[in-house]
């Protein structure tokens, strides 16, 4: 299991416990040793993970073992039917879109997808979408609207991909058009930031009447590294920039950027993906239950008002 530096002592202790357990075989002395180590692990967990700094939380949002969109999709939903392609240029694996059932009811699901192995990471382009990814998302969301299906989006991207092809095929237009399409969807829309909410590429899937955010997710106008390289011409000063950007879930809630923060298991979603999925599933069911009762005009007005009120000026 991949882990972050600050998790190392705990991960090592837990692996020793697992080894002892497999060797114990009813040996009372070893059982006692396990119990002692478990107590230590519990204290260590509190010490290491109970009160994390900004940069540790940013690292958790990008943790190599953090559950991605497809992990939640598999755990929360049934009958997942992925739909491919933008009908114009191609299919972008950095965005997954389709339909799935939540307690038997069909809903539209759209999200960024990162890869875990080196090969998957390349295939998914590290969750950095091209224009065709956003155009696929828009196509499937508008399809959902025609059949009255609610739309649930899952945001997890460092940002839209900055490359030659992306520029040639209209990255800006694709993002802008997706934002506009979401603002106009007549069906319930819930967006959840599950990992990295990286700038315009994140917002392209983020226009909803309810925006949720996992406890250790981030939502930011620019990556801390990008911010540092602009401010100080030194991308290595990302941790300092992260302090300034107020990109944590609690910040986003305070600034009115997200409506609710969904708590994660101690130490982050990767430490218990099943539990993380249960919490997210419960939050989505609760919100969707409420949103379904709104009329279309009420829904459009409320979605508009939600974003209309964001910003601070004198």
């Amino acid at each position, binding site marked *: 299991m991949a882990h972050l530096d600050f998790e190392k002592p705990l991960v090592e202790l837990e692996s020793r416990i697992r080894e002892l357990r497999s060797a114990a075989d009813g040996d009372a002395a070893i059982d006692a040793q396990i119990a002692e180590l478990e107590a230590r692990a519990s204290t260590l967990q509190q010490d290491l993970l109970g009160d994390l700094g900004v940069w540790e939380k940013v690292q958790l949002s990008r943790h190599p073992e953090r559950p991605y969109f497809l992990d939640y999709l598999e755990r929360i939903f049934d009958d997942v039917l992925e739909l491919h392609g933008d009908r114009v240029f191609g299919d972008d694996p950095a965005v997954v879109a389709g339909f799935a059932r939540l307690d038997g009811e069909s809903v539209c699901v759209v999200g960024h997808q990162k890869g875990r192995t080196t090969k998957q990471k390349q295939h998914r382009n590290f969750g950095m979408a091209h224009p065709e990814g956003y155009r696929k998302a828009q196509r499937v969301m508008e399809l959902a609207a025609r059949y009255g299906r609610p739309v649930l989006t899952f945001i997890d991207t460092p940002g*839209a*991909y*900055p*490359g*030659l092809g*992306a*520029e*040639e*095929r*209209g*990255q*800006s*237009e694709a*993002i*802008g*058009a997706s*934002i*506009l399409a979401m*603002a*106009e969807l007549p069906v319930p829309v819930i967006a959840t930031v599950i990992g990295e*909410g990286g*700038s*315009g590429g*994140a*917002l*392209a899937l*983020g*226009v909803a009447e309810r925006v949720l955010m996992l406890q250790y997710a981030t*939502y*930011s*106008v*620019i990556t801390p590294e*990008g*911010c540092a390289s*602009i*401010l*100080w011409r030194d991308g290595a000063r990302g941790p300092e920039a992260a302090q*300034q*950007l*107020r*990109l944590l879930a609690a*910040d*986003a809630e305070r*600034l009115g*950027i997200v409506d609710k923060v969904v708590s994660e298991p101690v130490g982050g979603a990767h430490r218990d993906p099943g539990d993380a999925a249960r919490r997210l599933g419960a939050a989505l069911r609760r919100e969707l239950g409420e949103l379904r009762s709104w009329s279309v005009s009420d829904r459009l007005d409320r*979605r*508009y008002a939600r*974003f*209309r009120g*964001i*910003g*601070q*000026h*004198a």
Partner: protein
Amino acid sequence: MDRVSKNPPTVEAAEKKTLGRGVFRRCDNCGETLKAREFTDNLEVCPACGHHFRLSAEGWVEILLDPGSFEEHDATLASADPLGFVDSKPYPERVRASRRKSGVDDAFLAGSGRLLGRPVQLGVFIYRFMGGSMGSVVGEKITRMFERATERGEPAILLSASGGARMQEGALSLMQMAKSVAALGRLRRAGLPFVSVLLNPTTGGVAASFAFLGDVNLAEPRALIGFAGPRVIEQTIRQKLPEGFQRAEFLLEHGMIDRIAPRPEMRATIARALGHLLD
């Protein structure tokens, strides 16, 4: 409160910054030295090579709208410091310095006016104020501009010149993209046109929100337009970008804009587009 400007700035007054002090001026593009007056009379376009130098927001108002018809709105909206952002200096200090230097309160000029007789809502980015970056104030002014156009049944014309979202207001800046685009959605629902003009440069969060969503997208010759800045792309792909990449001509070729309009033709081009959609 809306503020009516009693003395609309002239192109000349607004252009003092870019014109320099002397009687003569050398074109940075072709090297030709001409009378400064010739640049001014030619709307900041080099008379020798046709290079388009930046025209101020006030200058654009002057050349697009009927004389004396401009009435500025929301001029006094001023940014707050929601993040307590400090880089080499605190954000409020940076804003104050930019105000002193630019003579405006933030990076957007909005107002009502007439374009060849037709009432319109016009908005122009003020690039000299923090690179035209979009924070809460700019987002609010653009949103109000679209709302005003919708209420009054007038077309909206927006000239973008911006490096993108304003970093110092964090995700609040990002959200201005959604806020302004949602307001544009309402203008569309009301059946009213939006003409988007992309000036040099239009990148980042401004490009990736309303700038490409015009019913008609126009651009100035050679304007740099793109999602990511050229430096970021070069760092990502680790190769030099081809000549002309992300220039207006490149975007026209790739189907992203409707037309390139040289500055002297911009007003007529906008008017004709509106005419086709409305008359």
